[in-house]
């Protein structure tokens, strides 16, 4: 057990050590200062020339958003087209069929919004062409979209009054060429050398030692797994995602993948500090995020190492913890650690099956997605946190009777309205979606019997988890849910769309509005935002808005199940 705890400690420490310099590097990249990969500039210029883009043209926040949404629309159409015709397109050695329209809609949206709500299983649901042209492609560009939006906010928070916030295509392309592509190349090769396949050949038929005939699924796995983690998308090549022993062959690859998925969200926080030259502010944000992360992590590791009390009653040896849905090579601790990193970061890849975790671990996983800002997804985690920050500044300002200001810009009613709308959207989508579905199910349990794999409280948790995951753009699931039906495909598809683009549009709009305002130098009358006291304030806002809103729903699911089991 000590080995296992040391293991997760080492993974966290390594992530932190790597994220700090990466943050400094990212700040230099996006400020246009000299950096390590400047030799790629001709490549970037080539990309811009071929696309007919002038990457030096400054954009207002509205122009940024129009550019962002337009290119996302193009990707959606491309994805729909390929998924619904993949059966007759090339690179399909296993002869997998085309997707039904509602499944194609759900899959296209899901990856477009950097989520991975996979209502299919990779081995039988996608051709290699779809795996590469739809899934891998969207994993790159959707992550870059999130990072670019966060950089627009960085730019807007500088101490000057302006309308010009840099060029969207510039930020977007540089996120790819300077970060995601080189990073993925390194991770993919590390995986390939540890046994992850990277081939275009189909399944291998063989006869096992005992004499059974099996076919082993292969494919261009390494390339995709690298970007699925680094871009915090999480969509696995195989159905079992990173629990699959070819997708994640050993403890080392598990550590590499786990570091890869946390590193950019962490580095973006540091990058904010370096970019604005406000390191203390970045540390305050990082501190709040880390406290939230650890509070969710500790009970999960504890309960998973303790094992399932119902199995303890059988009188067997459960010394290694709860192992249903977990792999021997990772163990209970590293599985619990992975599940929390993946839910706070809206990555959604899994190395163990969340459905089989202890009830309170399921609760912490859901809380990670409900707050959705402890580190958070590539770029967007910081945007969510920014909305909480605005609300905290406003409330704190009112409490002490000072004008609410953030970084020398006044926060007024308009910004506040946007921030509140964005943060309340999340509980609305989750709770309304779950309520509606539970209503449907309760009205006709026989017709919808295929939805739930588990009875009672746990069944309710499965539905709640699915909408939480969709609204957080996470993509993991309590996979017992029979989710490839028109109701789930369409309802979660709509939730995904709303919960991706509104939380990007809102914070970018706030930042754009702030950027225009006159800069008021900090004085004794200013409420400092980079102190521990203010950190506590932000945490309180997150707890009240994000966590408490969900308490009644959580009481019906995981909390009730906990008390029935312990």
């Amino acid at each position, binding site marked *: 057990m000590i080995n296992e705890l040391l293991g997760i400690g080492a993974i966290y420490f390594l992530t932190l050590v790597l994220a700090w310099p990466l943050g400094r590097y990212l700040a230099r990249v996006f400020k246009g200062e000299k950096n390590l990969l400047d030799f790629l500039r001709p490549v970037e210029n080539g990309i811009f020339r071929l696309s007919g883009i002038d990457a030096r043209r400054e954009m207002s926040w509205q122009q940024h958003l129009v550019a962002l949404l337009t290119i996302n629309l193009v990707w959606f159409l491309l994805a729909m087209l390929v998924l619904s015709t993949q059966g007759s397109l090339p690179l399909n050695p296993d002869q997998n069929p085309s997707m039904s329209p509602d499944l194609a809609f759900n899959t296209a949206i899901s990856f477009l919004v950097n989520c991975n709500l996979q209502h299919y299983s990779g081995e039988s649901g996608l051709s290699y062409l779809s795996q590469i042209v739809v899934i891998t492609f969207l994993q790159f560009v959707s992550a870059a979209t999130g990072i670019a939006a966060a950089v627009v906010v960085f730019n807007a928070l500088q101490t000057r009054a302006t309308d010009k916030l840099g060029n969207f295509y510039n930020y977007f392309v540089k996120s790819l060429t300077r970060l995601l592509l080189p990073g993925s190349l390194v991770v993919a090769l590390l995986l390939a050398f540890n046994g992850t396949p990277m081939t275009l050949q189909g399944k291998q038929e063989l006869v096992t030692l005992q004499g059974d005939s099996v076919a082993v699924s292969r494919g261009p796995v390494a390339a995709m797994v690298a970007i699925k983690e680094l871009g915090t998308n999480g969509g696995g090549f195989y159905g079992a995602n990173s629990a699959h022993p070819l997708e994640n062959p050993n403890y080392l690859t598990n550590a590499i993948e786990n570091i890869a998925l946390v590193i950019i969200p962490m580095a973006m926080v540091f990058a904010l500090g370096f970019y604005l030259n406000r390191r203390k502010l970045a540390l305050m944000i990082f501190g709040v995020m880390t406290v939230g992360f650890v509070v969710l992590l500790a009970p999960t590791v504890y309960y998973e190492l303790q094992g399932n009390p119902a199995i303890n009653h059988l009188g067997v040896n459960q010394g290694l913890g709860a*192992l249903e849905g977990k792999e021997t090579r990772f163990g209970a601790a590293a599985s619990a650690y992975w599940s929390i990193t993946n839910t706070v970061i809206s990555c959604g890849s899994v190395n163990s099956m969340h459905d089989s975790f202890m009830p309170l671990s399921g609760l912490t996983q859901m809380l990670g997605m409900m707050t959705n800002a402890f580190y958070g997804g590539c770029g967007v985690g910081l945007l969510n946190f920014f909305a909480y920050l605005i609300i905290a500044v406003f409330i704190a300002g009112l409490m002490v009777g000072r004008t609410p200001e953030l970084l020398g810009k006044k926060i007024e009613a308009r910004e506040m309205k946007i921030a509140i709308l964005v943060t309340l959207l999340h509980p609305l989508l989750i709770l309304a979606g779950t309520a509606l579905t539970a209503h449907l199910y309760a009205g006709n349990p026989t017709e919808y019997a295929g939805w739930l794999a588990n009875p009672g409280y746990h069944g309710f948790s499965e539905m709640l988890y699915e909408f939480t995951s969709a609204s957080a753009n996470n993509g993991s699931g309590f996979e017992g849910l029979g989710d490839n039906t028109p109701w789930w495909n369409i309802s979660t598809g709509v939730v995904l769309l709303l919960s991706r683009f509104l939380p990007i549009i809102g914070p970018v709009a706030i930042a754009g509005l702030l950027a225009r305002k006159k800069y008021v130098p900090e004085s004794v009358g200013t409420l400092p935002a980079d102190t521990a006291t203010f950190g506590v304030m932000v945490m309180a806002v997150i707890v009240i808005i994000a966590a408490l809103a969900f308490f009644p729903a959580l009481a019906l699911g995981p909390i009730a199940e906990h008390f029935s089991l312990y």
Partner: protein
Amino acid sequence: MKQHLLPAFRLTLVLLVICCLIYPALVWAGAQLAPNGGQGETISHRGRVVGYDNVGQKFTRPEYFWSRPSAVDYNSAGSAGSNKGPSNPEYLAMVQARLDTFLLQNPGVPKAQVPAELLTASGSGLDPHLSPAGAAVQVARVARARQLDAAKVQALVAQHTQHSLLGPDRVNVLRLNVALDEL
């Protein structure tokens, strides 16, 4: 929006070439240097490939070490966990049944020594490993079925146990069974 549509379209085409052609090609080229040319490591026995190092297999005969239960019955063209919740009565009955079966087929093993991993399905359904305890509890049965000295089988298990500084110790079931057949 109109002025962004054409650049968006062209940029998408350029990025498709970079992300979907050049990037995978680079990874593929690098993977050619990896063990077995990036196709996953395989294990051979008596001149034929009997499986992948990293893909678990089903073993039901008493002379082999058994892998963990699997929700997909070790069908390596698919992969999944059971997704059973911890309080599901049907699931707990299944665990109890697996325990009863195991005790019946391994007479003399006390219940308290049976590790829970042998009663619970893995996340992928293709878990290639057992913990040392999961192998140890099967030694007596395997030795009896093969008419070998239990100490010899025990030594083979010890030899195939992979220790690591971080993370759990484990035994690769297929490698262990191949070694048994080669004794």
